[in-house]
C-alpha cells in the first residue's frame, strides 16, 4: 500500500514536471517575442554581415587559406545568431533578480529545479528558433547534409544553445549590479566571439604558423576548444569537408553544455532562495 502511494506521488510529480516546464517555456517565449524590434535589428545585422561583409571579404582573403570566405562564414553567422539569441535570457534573469521578481517565481506551483531547468531550456530553444532561418540559408548556399548529419548538427547546436543559455544565466545571477553584469557579459561575449573559428580558420596550420608570437597561446587554445568554434566547424566539416570531421567537436560541446546547464541551474536555485 505504502509502495503504491509512493509510486503514485512519484508519477504525479513527474507529470507535474512535464507540465511545469512547458509553462516556463511559454512564458519565456512570449517575453522573447516582445523584443521583436530588437530581433529585427539583430537579423538585419546578421544578414548585412553575411551578404555585405562576407561577400566583400571573399575577394580580400587569401585563397590559400580560405577558398571562399562567404561559404566559410555562413556556418559562422548561424552560430553567431544562435549565440546572440540564447545569450539574451541572462539579461532577463538579471533584470528579475534586480527587481526581486524571483519572489513571484518562487510562489509558482513548481519546484526550484523545474524552474531553473525551464529557464535554461527556454534560453536554448529561443536560440534554436532564432537561428533556424540562418541555418536554412547556410544549407541553401552550402548544400544539404545527409539525414544523420542533419540530426547531429541540430543536436550539437541545441547542446550549444542550452550551454550558452546556462552560461548567460550563471553570469546574470553572479551579481545584482547591472554595470558589473553588462561588463562581464561583454567580456565573455567578445572573447567567445573573436577567440573562435567563427570569422577565421584558426585550425588552419598556415594561419596558426602566422599567429605564433602574435596572438597569445591561451587565446588560440580557447579558439580551438570554444563550443562556438566546434559548432561552426562541425557544419563546415559536413558541408565543406574542411576542417575534417573530428569527434572532439561533439565532445567539447557536450562537456561545455553539461557544465553550464547543471552549474547555472544550481546557481539559479541558490540565487532565488537567497533572495
Amino acid at each position: 500500500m505504502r509502495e503504491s502511494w509512493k509510486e503514485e506521488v512519484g508519477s504525479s510529480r513527474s507529470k507535474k514536471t512535464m507540465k511545469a516546464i512547458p509553462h516556463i517555456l511559454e512564458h519565456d517565449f512570449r517575453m522573447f517575442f516582445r523584443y521583436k524590434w530588437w530581433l529585427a535589428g539583430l537579423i538585419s545585422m546578421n544578414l548585412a554581415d553575411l551578404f555585405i561583409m562576407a561577400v566583400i571579404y571573399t575577394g580580400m582573403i587569401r585563397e590559400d587559406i580560405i577558398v571562399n570566405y562567404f561559404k566559410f562564414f555562413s556556418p559562422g553567422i548561424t552560430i553567431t545568431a544562435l549565440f546572440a539569441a540564447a545569450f539574451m535570457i541572462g539579461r532577463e534573469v538579471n533584470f528579475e533578480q534586480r527587481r526581486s521578481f524571483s519572489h513571484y517565481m518562487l510562489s509558482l506551483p513548481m519546484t526550484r529545479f523545474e524552474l531553473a531547468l525551464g529557464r535554461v531550456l527556454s534560453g536554448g530553444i529561443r536560440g534554436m528558433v532564432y537561428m533556424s532561418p540562418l541555418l536554412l540559408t547556410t544549407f541553401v548556399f552550402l548544400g544539404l547534409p545527409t539525414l544523420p548529419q542533419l540530426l547531429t548538427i541540430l543536436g550539437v547546436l541545441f547542446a550549444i544553445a542550452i550551454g550558452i543559455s546556462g552560461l548567460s544565466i550563471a553570469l546574470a545571477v553572479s551579481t545584482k549590479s547591472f554595470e558589473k553584469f553588462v561588463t562581464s557579459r561583454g567580456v565573455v561575449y567578445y572573447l567567445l566571439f573573436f577567440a573562435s573559428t567563427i570569422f577565421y580558420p584558426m585550425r588552419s596550420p598556415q594561419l596558426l604558423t602566422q599567429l605564433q608570437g602574435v596572438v597569445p597561446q591561451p587565446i588560440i587554445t580557447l579558439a580551438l576548444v570554444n563550443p562556438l568554434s566546434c559548432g561552426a566547424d562541425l557544419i563546415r566539416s559536413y558541408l565543406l569537408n574542411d576542417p575534417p570531421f573530428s569527434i572532439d567537436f561533439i565532445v567539447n560541446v557536450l562537456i561545455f553544455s553539461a557544465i553550464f546547464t547543471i552549474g547555472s541551474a544550481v546557481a539559479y536555485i541558490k540565487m532565488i532562495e537567497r533572495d
Partner: protein
Amino acid sequence: MTKIWTVVERDVRMFLQYKFMLIMRGIWFVAQISLFGLVVSRIVVVGNYFQYYAAGCAIIMLFSTSMFIGYDIYEEAEHGVVEYLLSLPVSRRELVLGRSIGGGLRSFVYVGPLLGVVLVLTGVTNPLNVIVAFLSLFLFAFGVSGLSITLAVGIKSHDKFDILLGVLDALIVRLSTTLYPKVAMMQASPVYSNLAQFNPLTFASDLFRWGAGLEGFFPDLTNPVVAIAGLILFFSIFVFISITIYERKLEGGGWQ
C-alpha cells in the same frame, strides 16, 4: 553663448552616467582591434590592413556614440524631463543647438583618446593633416548627432527608433570604407562601392586615414577635399534639419 554651453555641459555630464554603455563600447573596440583585426590582417591580401582596420573601428565608435543622443531624447520625453527643460531660462533655439553640439562633443571626448591610440599605432607623419582630420571629425560627430536627433523626434515609437538605428548601423557601417578598402568593395559589387562613395562614414574614415598618413598604402582613399566637402554638407544638412524639427516639436507638446 553661455546658455548654449550650459546645455552642452549638461549633455556631456549625462553621457558620463552611461557607464555600462561606455565600458561595453570600450571592450568592443579592444576586442575588435586586438583579436579580429590582428588575425584578419594575417589572412587578407591587403597590406597594412591592421592599421586600416584600427582606424575604421575608431570611426565606427565615433558614429555609434554620437548616435546615442537620440536615446536621451526618448528618455527625456518618457520621464517628463522635456517640460523641465522648457521651463529653463534658455531659448528653444539655444536648447536645440546646445543638444546638437553636446551630442557631438561628448562622443568626441570619449572617442578622442581612442583616436589617439590609433594614431600611436599608425604613427603621425603630418601633424597639420591630423588637425584638419580631427576638425572634420568634429563636424562628422555633430552631423551624426543631428541625424540621431532628427530620427528621434521624427519617429515617436521607441521600438521603431531602436530598430531603425540597428538597421542603419548595420547598413551604414558595412556599406562604407570603415572595414575594407574601396577597391575590395568594387570587386565584390559595384553597387556596394557606389553606395559607399556617398556614405559620410566613408568620408570620415578616409579622412582620418589621410590624417594618420595611411594614404600611401591605400591610394584609393577619397580625396581629402571631397571628403571634407562631403562632411561639411552632411553636418550642415543634419544639424539644420534637426534644429528645425526639434524646435518645432518642442512647441505644443509635439514630443509626446
